């Protein structure tokens, strides 16, 4: 039996709605079968406020063991560091967050806002992630923070986080399966391949068949701002809601698992020099890549140039 407390901070609730689409285990089965005791979830609990308060007191005083703290949404510190833009019973919610984080065996930052600050990092609300502020380690808990189990915050990036990643992480934590993390503390299990991997437009990418407008079947990387080759994530491997992904449906990947999401420059546009993106697929050698793409475009088959495939 593992206890879970789910705190909603500065966010939209989208990760909870993503989780409701969990399919391998329905969300109810996820909690019931894994023997997870969901102490509190803001949308899925019917505990009275009085009982909830008592429970929080018992957790923060150590009378109830807290195994997993899930935080959805950014920690809001504004105005002027007070946190009063997000309150609970007249107190800054970030205070409750700190109390809970220091009691938990494991702390999970669910979604990019919780992981890296996301929307509002550079704005009046002074949002920050739990242990990162964008790429910079620190965040609300500080760079040296370790939960009681010794683990740093586990960052489940994404806006929202993929439902199977949330479910998978809960399964791993419920069964004490270790999760290896990358330098931004995202589990490699889901964040070691690029979003690009598995995209149905890959063949177009391969031969550099580029689109510069919506509604076509080719690759969206070169002109339309697609971040699929730049950021990690399982969108095209696990698929969303059993069926698809944004790039498959002609919507560029916005790079929502990246610590800098949302990027400062306009979406739907790839910054480039002479048609070559400023930022190339992760890890490639620029000179080699340009030669390769030039040759690939020459070698492109007609069926792709004519977009004669169905997808």
């Amino acid at each position: 039996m593992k206890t879970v407390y789910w705190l909603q901070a500065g966010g939209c609730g989208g990760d909870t709605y993503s989780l409701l689409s969990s399919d391998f285990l329905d969300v109810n089965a996820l909690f019931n079968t894994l023997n997870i005791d969901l102490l509190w979830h803001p949308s899925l609990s019917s505990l009275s406020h009085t009982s909830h308060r008592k429970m929080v007191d018992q957790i923060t005083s150590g009378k109830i063991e807290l195994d997993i703290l899930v935080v959805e949404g950014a920690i809001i510190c504004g105005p002027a560091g007070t946190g009063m833009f997000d309150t609970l019973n007249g107190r800054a919610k970030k205070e409750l967050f700190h109390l809970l984080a220091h009691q938990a065996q494991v702390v999970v930052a669910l979604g990019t806002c919780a992981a890296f600050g996301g929307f509002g990092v550079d704005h009046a609300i002074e949002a920050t992630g739990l242990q990162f502020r964008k790429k910079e380690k620190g965040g609300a808990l500080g760079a040296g923070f370790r939960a009681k189990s010794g683990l740093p915050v586990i960052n489940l990036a994404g806006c929202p986080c993929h439902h199977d990643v949330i479910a998978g992480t809960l399964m791993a934590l419920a069964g004490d399966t270790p999760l290896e993390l990358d330098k931004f503390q995202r589990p490699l299990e889901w964040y070691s391949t690029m979003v690009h991997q598995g995209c149905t437009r890959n063949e177009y990418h391969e031969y550099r068949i580029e689109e510069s407008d919506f509604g076509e079947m080719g690759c969206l990387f070169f002109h339309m701002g697609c971040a699929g080759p730049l950021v990690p994530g399982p969108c095209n491997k696990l698929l969303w809601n059993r069926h698809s992904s944004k790039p498959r449906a002609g919507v560029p990947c916005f790079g929502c698992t990246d610590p800098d999401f949302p990027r400062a420059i306009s979406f739907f546009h790839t910054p480039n020099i002479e048609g070559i993106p400023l930022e190339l697929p992760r890890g490639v050698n620029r000179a080699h890549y340009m030669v390769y793409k030039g040759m690939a475009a020459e070698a492109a088959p007609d069926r792709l140039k004519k977009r004669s495939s169905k997808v």
Partner: protein
Amino acid sequence: MSQIIKGLNIPVNRVEGDLEVRVDVVDHRIDNAWSAGTMFRGFESMMVGRGPLDGLVITPRICGICSLTHLSAAVTALDSITGITPPDNAIRLRNIALIAETIQSDMRQAILMYMADFTNAQAYRHHPLFKEAVDRYQMLKGTSVLEVIRKTKRLIEVIAIIGGQWPHTSFMVPGGVTSIPDTAKLMQCRLIIEQFKEWFESRVLGCTMERWQAVSSFKDLENWLGESPCHRNSEVGFFLRFAWKAGLDTFGRGTDNYISFGNFPFPRHTGVVPLNQINDKDEPGKRQNLVLTAPGFATGITPRPLDPTKITEDVSAAWFEQEKTTLHPFDGITRPYASGSSGEKYSWVKAPRYNSVPAETGPLAEMIMDKVPLFHDMIQQKGASALIRQLARMVRPASLLPAMGTWLNELMTHRDAPFYTSVKSIPDGEGAGMVQAPRGALGHWVKIKNRKISHYQIITPTAWNGSPRDKNKHPGPWEKALKGVALKNLENPVEAGHVIRSFDPCMVCAVHTLKKDGTPHKKFHTGWTF
């Protein structure tokens, strides 16, 4: 001597985001109510200076449960700036996805959020239907809860097929949509919708949608309920039996003003008929600007045409800086003013007003604009109530599912027709995206200048419903609806919860909301809940 309790604070969970309501109670009756969100997220100011299309990516992220509706308001504003009407197939695809989102929201709100209060043992253990309510609605275990989790998840697959994922896709773009599903996927959509309709009819209504549409008066409703065990045991039937016994039809009236922006614009060629023409044969069938659910403003049950210039936001009771107290959203700004103090200001939600009066929005407002006979009759007989508002939400899918099916069939017939008109760049200009979100009227007011967003104002449904007082001291709709509500047990004010939840509050959407520490009533501050 009267027992007077002032400034009791009532936090509300199971709403999107955080909400606290403060009430004065005289002799176990709410004498006055103030509503305040407790979070400020400042989305509007994030938009200024960004690229013209960025609203399509950023605004859906305001809300996890109705992100497509924000996308649709954002794209409608841009469509109006470009002046390009999207092709028929684009309109069909947008509408189908939006209807799927609306229906999942209605079903989840009803079963997961609203009915959970019927399992409140302290309030209802002596209610004759209490045990059955627990069997149905217990969190993550109740039979109805499990069904709704499974069925809504399936319906959402339609959105993923059309737009890639849910929540938070951006497949609607100026000029249309980014892709059209192949025929095999459209066939899957048809099956998903068909299966959902079967479940909705057999379990939620307990009868066919046609039979339900024949229920056209309060008397009919009573007869319908007595007609068969299927009706009595359906979700709607059980809700009615539980709610009548608990008196939910006797409180929560509200302002009697209703507003809807209307939604689901028609393709040029379609077999779908606007709902108000189905319900009112005299309604003139103009072929221009046809929409499925009608826009309008109504006092009581008399709808009038909507005049968008009459919409203003009032900051008399809200902590925002603005040169004039009331401004149209094309002129308004969102600048939190977090210092100073005056007795007038107590909330961090702006107060949207229509022609200077507050108005409620949501499914009930739609039923009034669309002249649905059952709801017109119920309101004429007893006035609005928590029960009527919630009933409107539960049965709304019966009005939307047939149109969804028709548009899908039309897509399959015209699969090869265009779904996108190229829009090379967004010109400077201004446009409004006024749509009807699951929770009611949603507007995005956008200005583009020098290829950048220069102005972005959003008025959400919850801002209408949960608004504070205005310069005329008129309370917002749910503040008004709470006045006079009897609280049987002050320790467990479940009745107030029924009223507020009947408006389906979504506080993450009330993007202006902000609460400042130390309200004028702080000394009476007591933590309460529903």
